[in-house]
């Protein structure tokens, strides 16, 4: 039960970081914190919970879903960091306040 509160707190901390950070790298790192705490919550809940019917979820399926989350998070990080470097190269800033126009 404790880890549920902890994971929720970490998620909220990451959310605070996403909203308060003023540079892209900080926002991306905070998103990673949110993703990590979400995965911990999912894995923790499903590996230590019994369904209402009394049947425990298949732990293999749980790990398979966890692997898929890690893959999605890795893809997100790759594209996000590519955008970061590209923005720094073109606009010479990484502050989110400086990104006011969308152009191809």
């Amino acid at each position, binding site marked *: 039960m404790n880890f549920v509160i902890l994971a929720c707190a970490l998620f909220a901390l990451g959310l605070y970081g996403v909203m*308060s*950070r003023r540079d892209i790298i900080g926002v991306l790192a905070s998103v990673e914190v949110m993703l990590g705490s979400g995965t911990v919550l999912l894995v923790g809940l499903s590996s230590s919970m019994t369904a209402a019917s009394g049947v425990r979820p298949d732990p293999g399926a749980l790990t398979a879903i966890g692997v898929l989350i890690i893959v999605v998070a890795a893809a997100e990080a790759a594209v996000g960091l590519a955008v970061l470097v590209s923005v720094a190269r073109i606009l010479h800033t990484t502050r989110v306040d400086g990104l006011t126009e969308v152009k191809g």
Partner: protein
Amino acid sequence: MTMSGQLAFWVLAAISVLGAATVVFGRDVTRMVLGLGAFLLSVAGWFLFFGQTFLAVAQVFVYVGGVLVLVLFAIMLVHRAEGKDPALTSRHDVDIAAVALSVFGIMVVSLRSVWPRMTEGPVPTSTTQVSEQLLGAYLPHLEAAGLLLLAAMVAAIVIMGGEGE
């Protein structure tokens, strides 16, 4: 929970909270990356704590070995483009804290109903069970994940090389 289990829980909790706090409040970019590394390692620790060995190893390989190095490379490239380390600034605000606290409250209240159904010991998973699931019922998902990774790789190359120098 046994005594050692309690100890592992609190050590992991301390590392994850400290790492996440460094990521969110840190002013130095190198320290922020170190904090992120500590947090990601603690996530791997949580997977071990819940008996998911395969996930823990995947987490260390993908995040600590891959994403963290990628972040360091990105910081170095930004340094080259800007001529200095990226500045880390934050706008700490009561409104933002209120939103984050509300989300925390909503999550805890909505998850409260599952607490009575939680058992003490998590079930450990063997790699055989994982592979049976990944190459059985979850095969389409695995293929889709591979496709997503390929798309992300192509997208990253296009975004990075789009402008040229």
